[in-house]
């Protein structure tokens, strides 16, 4: 994974003060993650991997935070840690002010009622042997909410909400009878029935065709708008994040390297990795169909200074609400060949 040369992207530890709130919003955060560390493998053994280090961020009610990073950057681990599915997590995760780390399995199960996780693979995340109705109402059954009639009504409403209309057409079907897009809608409907405070969406569109992605994004957005649910939206696709998210957090090598309002991060990326990511997206983006207007990034060239190999910089606030973990004055893009090797 991350080599020594890239250590400069990796902060030692974020300060203890809660610096990662969105300055625009007031009130207590919905989710507050502080100094999260996750290790895998036996402690001290050669197989030990630190997947997440010193991560801190928060999500306000009704906010969509985009967590960006490439595979292996630890973003899925963050979601799993928040769900309490990772035993080896340390630090602090507070949901609506309540500490979740260290809860017993029994208590965790109760807390999970207020959380929901949407998975990447709609083929895999729905039980192939259960009907759509059973899948959607499962959470209610597990938490013993409502009677049968209420559950059925809720399921129908949720299916209609995600655009599976009329719901009666889908309710008795099995997942294999649905297309990928429809399945992902079912997964979203399943997330909605218990009216969770926070939804964690882990690459919910990456397995879908382009033509279906936007539909899913719109549903999520609408749900946030109507319910005030907070979202942690995990993706590797900066363009998607730009369309959906209020704020963006960029992860690299298990660390948060940049965090800020979406437009600020995209128009003014500070961390070299963010810049690299933007450059790649730029490279991949099609030639604009209309006359390109506005912003075009140009990157100063330069090399990573030696210090980055040894210093583990902390997140610092550069602009209001815009944080970066890099000590360089000219936060230049790193040598390409350096990254090339790290593929």
């Amino acid at each position: 994974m991350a080599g020594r040369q890239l250590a400069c992207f990796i902060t030692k530890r974020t300060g203890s003060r809660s610096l990662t709130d969105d300055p625009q919003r007031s009130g207590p955060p919905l989710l507050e993650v502080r100094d999260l560390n996750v290790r895998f493998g036996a402690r001290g053994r050669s197989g030990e991997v630190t997947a997440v280090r010193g991560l801190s961020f928060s999500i306000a009610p009704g906010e969509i935070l985009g967590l960006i990073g490439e595979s292996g950057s630890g973003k899925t681990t963050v979601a799993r840690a928040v769900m309490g599915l990772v035993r080896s997590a340390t630090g602090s995760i507070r949901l609506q002010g309540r500490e979740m780390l260290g809860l017993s399995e029994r208590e965790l199960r109760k807390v999970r009622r207020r959380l929901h996780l949407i998975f990447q693979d709609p083929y895999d995340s729905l039980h192939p042997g259960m009907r759509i109705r059973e899948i959607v109402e499962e959470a209610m059954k597990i938490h013993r909410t409502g009677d049968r009639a209420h559950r059925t009504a809720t399921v129908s409403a949720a299916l209609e909400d995600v655009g599976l209309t009329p719901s009666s057409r889908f309710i008795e079907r099995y997942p294999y009878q649905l297309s990928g897009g429809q399945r992902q809608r079912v997964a979203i409907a399943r997330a909605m029935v218990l009216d969770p405070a926070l939804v964690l969406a882990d690459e919910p569109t990456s397995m879908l065709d382009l033509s279906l992605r936007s539909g899913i994004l719109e549903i999520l957005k609408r749900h946030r708008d109507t319910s005030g649910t907070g979202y942690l939206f995990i993706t590797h696709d900066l363009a998607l994040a730009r369309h959906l998210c209020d704020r963006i957090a960029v992860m690299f090598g298990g660390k948060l390297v940049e965090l800020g309002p979406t437009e600020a991060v995209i128009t003014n990326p500070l961390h070299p990795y963010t810049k690299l990511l933007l450059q790649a997206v730029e490279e991949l983006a099609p030639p604009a169909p209309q006359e390109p207007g506005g912003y075009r990034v140009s990157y100063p060239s330069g090399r990573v200074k030696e210090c980055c190999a040894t210093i583990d910089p902390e997140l610092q606030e550069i602009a209001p609400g815009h944080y970066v973990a890099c000590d360089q004055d000219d936060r230049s893009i790193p040598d390409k060949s350096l990254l090339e090797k790290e593929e």
Partner: protein
Amino acid sequence: MSTLLEVRGLNTVYRTPAETVRAVDGVDLTVERGEILGVVGESGSGKTTLVMSLMRLIKPPGRILKGGEMLLDGEDLFRLPRSEMPARRGQDLALIPQSAMHALNPVIPVDRQIAEGISVHQGVGRKAAMRTARERLREVGILPERHNAYPHELSGGMRQRCIIAMAIANEPKLVIADEPVSGLDVVVQARILRLISELKESRGLSMILVSHDLPTVAKICDRIMVMYAGRIVETGKARAVLDKPLHPYTRALVEAIPQMRGPRQPLQPIPGDPPDLHNLPPGCNFRPRCPAAFVDCKMVDPSLEEAERGRKAACLLYHKENRK
């Protein structure tokens, strides 16, 4: 430029006692020398079947129907006896398959896998083949110390590079790439595409690049073909297709691309579901999802006709009788 490949009337069906599914339905295509032809289509549009048909690697119950032709440098590969195909694959036609993660034999070092193809086609010894293989690996940017690595020791991007090295090992006339970058991280995607562009420049590579991702294709391809439900619905120069999509489906695809620039606009989803080849609607296949559909679309199955200069579309909107 001269024409390298000309395919006419390619029909590939999957035939079982229960039903016959036309996965590739009367496709014509041409590739010029030194050109990259992009083929775009979503799940179930028959892209992969097209690729495998061109390689003549369709396995039962799939079969390529007689009557089509595939002229490579003027020679009809569909008329060759099956036993001669292995000699052509890798030599005339090379494949970059869909999943780089699984396309390498997990128990053989990558350089030997590449050398295998070289020694078969060039009839050289093991050592010479290995030399060539390593040369190719260097060319695609694999450091020498990783040449004898096993596939699982390499990252996704590096594996994809190996596959590319394998494809160009025998300097084939045509490379057919099926989703060469899907499944990779953005940064890596960018690099792989850059590599392909570079190879095109340096080697004058001719290529068919198949993808579900319009932006990817648009970026490096010279021409684009859009596939829908086993058919070509639009062709044209990449730039032109992107700037001014003709077919409603193409237009929808373009509009669904999230933009990094400009104001944030709500994305326009394409309504409905991807086509189900087992159960196609009468008339135009795209009609159920088409915002511009009119009465005739239900009855007439539009053919691919020239809509503008150098552009073709399979949509009644552009048929002569409708253009007034």
